[in-house]
């Protein structure tokens, strides 16, 4: 990378909302399905059909806006964006032009090392999705060179959230971190499935380059066709390098749309003829304006869950958990919520995190039962951590107990009590086990005395075994060492 230049990146996301029905009609909103089965006069743009907005979709957008701290204006409206395309039934898209449902706001995100960053949002608005075209005759399913296209309107009219960031990101890695945070937040809100592979999250990036430290913006290009977070990162880095190369050689960047070529790892120009789009936006006359009541907005605000970025900050700065583990904990909202309940009755957050992400997640993977839905209640896990911290049991016993708790054994303290599993911390009792083991293995003791210090592990293991695992390992270590050296 050339240090004389910095990249200026903005990201525009389209997110399909998780509603039962489409935006303006009662057709089911679901991924996939037999082509052209989820269609009605409205979403097929039949003559005479009229749209009626889905109240739930509007609430989801407002909730998303509130989660990012956006302003929810008292007045909002729908507009028509006019352009012809075969998979757009009415040949206009009902969208929002100058009065979106949410204005401003900030996405807090963090980099791999845990550094928190912020990226401001321009706006969030609500619109309808298009159908899907499959291009045939070109061999590779691409539009270029195809001889005809097949259209499926199942997706037409699905509610779509458009979320536009300010150009405040500086690298592909930052863009991905921003997208990860956006994705986690929308998932936590239940706004969307946010699956790039199913198209419920789609994003484009605007990239420009300027001399480092400059306040002016360079000419930007818009990158499309990025199908995964990894391709977002690669595409941005590739485009940044391309633009730096051009500028370094005294060239000029052309404002254009460029497509990401995953196979060759480059962006290529998507211009055919540069006919400027003239969308002829005007207020949608089939709909009346939206004026979200303040009471409704406050009700939605009060119902917001704890957001991933808030969780992450608390885990790292207050609970002292490392960035990697904290990220894993916020990744799955139910896991984070479970962890929060454990921490609420335990003061060893690190141990709680280790258990949740380690043994419990392993058990969850093996059994296919989510941690939060398992038989191990947060209170019992906290109890187990308490037993370890108080040295009542050692970690080996703790692991065994956890496996039994997963199978429904209940309170670990009760099991320890009932089965006498409490750790032996009495030096006298442990010394007796040490004595017993050393006298049973005179040859090993001799090896140690001859300088083979690595046999100590064997002896410690034998003492632990003799204690049926209950001896305090630290104390065993200490006593074995003392005895051998005496």
């Amino acid at each position: 990378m050339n240090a004389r230049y910095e990249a200026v990146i903005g990201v525009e996301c389209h997110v399909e909302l998780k509603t039962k029905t489409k935006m303006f009609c009662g057709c089911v909103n679901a991924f996939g399905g037999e082509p052209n089965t989820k269609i009605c006069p409205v979403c097929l743009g039949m003559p005479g059909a009229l749209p009626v907005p889905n109240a739930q979709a509007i609430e989801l957008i407002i909730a998303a806006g509130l989660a990012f701290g956006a302003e929810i204006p008292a007045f909002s409206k729908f507009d028509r964006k006019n352009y012809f395309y075969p998979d757009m039934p009415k040949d206009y898209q009902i969208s929002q032009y100058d009065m979106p449902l949410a204005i401003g706001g900030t996405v807090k995100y963090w980099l791999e090392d845990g550094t928190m960053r912020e990226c401001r949002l321009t706006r969030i608005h609500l619109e309808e999705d298009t159908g899907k075209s499959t291009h045939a005759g070109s061999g590779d399913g691409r539009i270029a060179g195809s001889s005809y296209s097949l259209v499926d309107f199942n997706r037409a009219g699905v509610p779509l959230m458009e979320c536009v960031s300010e150009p405040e990101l500086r690298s592909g890695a930052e863009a991905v971190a921003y997208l990860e945070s956006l994705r986690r937040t929308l998932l936590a809100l239940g706004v969307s499935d946010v699956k790039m592979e199913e198209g419920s999250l789609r994003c484009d990036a605007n990239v420009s380059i300027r001399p480092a430290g400059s306040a002016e913006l360079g000419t930007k290009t818009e990158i499309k066709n990025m199908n995964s977070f990894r391709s977002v990162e690669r595409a941005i880095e590739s485009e940044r390098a391309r633009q730096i190369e051009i500028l370094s050689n005294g060239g000029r960047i052309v404002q254009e749309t460029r497509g990401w070529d995953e196979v060759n790892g480059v962006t290529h120009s998507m211009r055919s003829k540069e006919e400027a789009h003239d969308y002829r936006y005007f207020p949608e006359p089939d709909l009346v304006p939206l004026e979200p009541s303040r009471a409704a907005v406050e009700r939605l605000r009060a119902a917001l869950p704890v957001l991933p970025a808030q969780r992450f900050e608390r885990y790292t700065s207050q609970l002292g958990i490392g960035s990697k583990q904290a990220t894993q904990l916020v990744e799955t909202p139910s896991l984070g919520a479970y962890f929060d309940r454990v921490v609420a009755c335990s003061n060893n957050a690190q141990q709680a995190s280790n258990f949740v992400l380690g043994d419990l997640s392993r058990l969850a993977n093996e059994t296919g039962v989510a941690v939060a839905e398992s038989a191990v209640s947060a209170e019992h896990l906290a109890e187990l951590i308490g037993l370890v911290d108080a040295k009542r049991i050692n970690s080996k016993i703790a692991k065994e107990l956890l496996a039994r708790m997963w199978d429904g054994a209940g309170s670990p303290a009760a099991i320890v009590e009932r089965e006498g599993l409490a750790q032996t911390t009495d030096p006298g009792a442990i010394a007796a086990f040490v004595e017993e083991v050393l006298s049973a293995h005179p040859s090993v003791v001799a090896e140690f005395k001859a300088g083979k210090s690595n046999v100590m592990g064997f002896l410690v293991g034998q003492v632990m075994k003799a204690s049926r695992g209950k001896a305090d390992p630290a104390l065993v270590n200490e006593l074995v060492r003392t005895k051998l050296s005496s």
Partner: protein
Amino acid sequence: MPDSIDIRYVATLARIALTDDEVEVFGRQLGDLLGHVNALAELDTASVSATAQVIESRNVLREDRPAPCLDREKVLAQAPQRQGAFFRVPRIIAE
């Protein structure tokens, strides 16, 4: 107010192929019409709000409840061209 109209450009946006005769006739007729509508410039609208809708309703919404869809065969039977369960269109040249 501007009173010329670029008929060819507008017809391109509207996706209507026009003959040269139509360009000439429509250009003249619509130029005349623009001459008439330019009378609106006489109105002082500086402090007037725009009316998109005369009714004052707000928030007319529907519940997120599924409703029956149309029968696919009934719909596809009227498609100008279909292929299996899809609507078929000529090749799309990316723009």
